[in-house]
């Protein structure tokens, strides 16, 4: 309807036929273009699903189809919107821009969260409503209590070690001539997958019989010092968890270090110089000036690492598969859903994980509020 006000040609008077023709043409084109796009994308999907073509060909087509398809959808929907006249363009364009993102977020995060909450009140097959029974199970089943104990170990040792080591290295490297090389080496594990890290560390923890040469680095050192070969990740529960935690400390200390390093470089040089002139020792400078100055960064890094540690999954799955008392929340969740097929209990575990993260969510929202107020 909005087209009416711009339809009549200038001066020549209103010609209904011509108007209809031009509108019809527009309409046909407007339907045709998205239609063609849809058919092309659909054919691509069918091809990728069923094709027996050589793999490199599928790879190229898949990438072009996926990447190009997403961009083409925006072009076409914007193209349609812009034909509706300025008024409607102005009204609808924001939704063309923001709509796909919102649809995907709703589909993949918001609605599933609600559905998981709903499923957590049902039994293993999702047929009978049992309300809080799954949650009662979580907090009474001894196997599941071990899971929470382990996650606590992960947070207490994993998160704090990463933060402390990251801070220490950042401060020390800041005074070293080889700063960037040292930082690259420590940061490097960030690029390694958990599965890859699992192989690397399994190899370090490898145990052989006392009569054979030890090929695992840790046992080689241990036996060299006169000890018996140990199966580090299986014995001495719950402390075997620490050997898994070390891996994650190795992986994420670099992350903490980089953020701390940037924060430390933000401390005004004058401030530290003034303290030195007043006779402060380096240790005093560290605790009285650096720590308070970068406290905000420390909190941010710590919360990020705590969330990350709460959700730890791959390392445990690859290293022990959750055996020997090393199960954590995310692996327990995976086992309930995909091995035991207990969807109710699995969902409840996911909800508990979410509840543990909520305090951090509130913290994030408050931070956002402050930023808005500034604008």
């Amino acid at each position, binding site marked *: 309807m909005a087209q009416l006000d711009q339809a009549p040609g200038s001066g020549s008077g209103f010609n209904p036929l011509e108007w209809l023709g031009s509108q019809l043409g527009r309409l046909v084109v407007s339907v045709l273009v998205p239609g063609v796009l849809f058919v092309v994308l659909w054919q691509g999907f069918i091809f990728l699903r069923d094709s027996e073509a050589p793999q490199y060909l599928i790879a190229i087509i898949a990438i072009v189809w996926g990447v190009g398809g997403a961009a083409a959808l925006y072009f076409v929907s914007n193209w349609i919107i812009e034909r509706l006249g300025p008024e409607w363009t102005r009204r609808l364009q924001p939704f063309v821009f923001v709509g796909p993102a919102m649809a995907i977020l709703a589909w993949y995060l918001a609605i599933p969260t609600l559905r998981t909450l709903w499923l957590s009140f049902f039994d293993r097959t999702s047929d009978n409503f049992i309300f809080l029974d799954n949650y009662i199970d979580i907090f009474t089943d001894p196997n599941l209590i071990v899971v929470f104990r382990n996650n606590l170990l992960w947070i207490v040792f994993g998160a704090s070690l990463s933060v402390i080591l990251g801070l220490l290295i950042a401060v020390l490297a800041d005074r070293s001539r080889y700063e960037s090389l040292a930082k690259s080496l420590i940061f490097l594990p960030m690029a390694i997958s958990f599965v890859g890290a*699992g192989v690397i560390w399994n190899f370090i923890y490898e145990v052989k019989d006392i009569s054979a040469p030890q090929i695992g680095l840790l046992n080689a050192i241990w036996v060299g010092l006169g000890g018996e070969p140990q199966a580090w990740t299986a014995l001495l529960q719950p402390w075997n968890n620490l050997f898994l935690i070390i891996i994650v400390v190795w992986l994420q200390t670099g992350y903490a270090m980089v953020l701390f390093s940037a924060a430390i470089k933000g401390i005004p040089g004058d401030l530290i110089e003034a303290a030195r002139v007043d006779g402060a020792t380096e240790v005093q400078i560290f605790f009285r000036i650096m720590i308070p100055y970068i406290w905000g960064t420390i909190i941010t890094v710590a919360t990020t690492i705590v969330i990350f540690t709460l959700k730890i999954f791959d390392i445990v799955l690859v290293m022990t598969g959750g055996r020997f008392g090393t199960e954590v929340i995310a692996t327990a969740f995976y086992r309930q859903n995909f091995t035991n097929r207990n969807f109710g209990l699995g969902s409840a575990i996911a909800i508990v994980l979410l509840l543990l993260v909520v305090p951090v969510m509130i913290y994030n929202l408050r931070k956002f509020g402050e930023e808005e107020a500034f604008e």
Partner: protein
Amino acid sequence: MNTYQARSTALQRFLRAAPVRAIILVICTIWTLPTAGMLVSSFRSANNIRSSGWWTGLVHPFEATQWTIENYSTVLTADGMANAFINSLIITIPSTVIPITIAAFAAYAFAWMKFPGRDLLFIIVVALLVVPLQMALIPIFRLYNDIELGGTFLGTWLAHTGFGLPLAIYLLYNYIAQLPRELFESVFIDGASHFTAFRRLVLPLSIPAIASFAIFQFLWVWNDLLVALVFLGTAPDVAIVTSRLSAMIGTKGEAWHLLTAGAFITMVVPLIVFFALQRYFVRGLLAGSVKG
């Protein structure tokens, strides 16, 4: 940088720096040894690995007979790592580009367009930043089974897109929102539409932010195991490097010559990306929070 600090004599500085340097050296060695051991082992024969520690191989590094690349050829062909490598590329590239496209449009709208519900929607995006992706796995898994998206590339791209979007929108918004207002005013006076402004002005200017998120997402998707296990599965024609490697750990846990070579193959691309674009990666980390 604290380059302007007062300088003492070179000797004094050296003595003061010595303990610091020693500590750094020790830490760096500890941090590098695990990877180095794996890399060295991946070039040793199965027998050598079984009978002696990898460090003994370094005693006579130039004895060419003890080094072999057979592990790599076995892993690439017999264990299907070559296929998995291509599959990883098929998964990772669109899973990086699609969320960037979608997030850039959304971030632009949040930053420079007026529409009802803008603030509320943005708060929802930020809140979703910390929702663990585990929340979504069962419902999406069931949905995928119903609409036959399970085990397809498209399904996995979309899943990675969904899980990556909150961070992508958040990072890109922070960047796009602080572009100078005058830029937009001059473009709009020339009669450009929002779409043109986005394409010609905002996209080119946002390259640094886009690059830093891209590296983040690329490494994340390439290294991911959970999403791939659930949505893509382990069938040989779609399995990616991480799921192949994890299957190998399960079936041949003692075959270190193959596992170390396989692990290195999974690491090659991330390491190249990491070293080539380290600066952007760090910038991305500094720009805000981290993936939820």
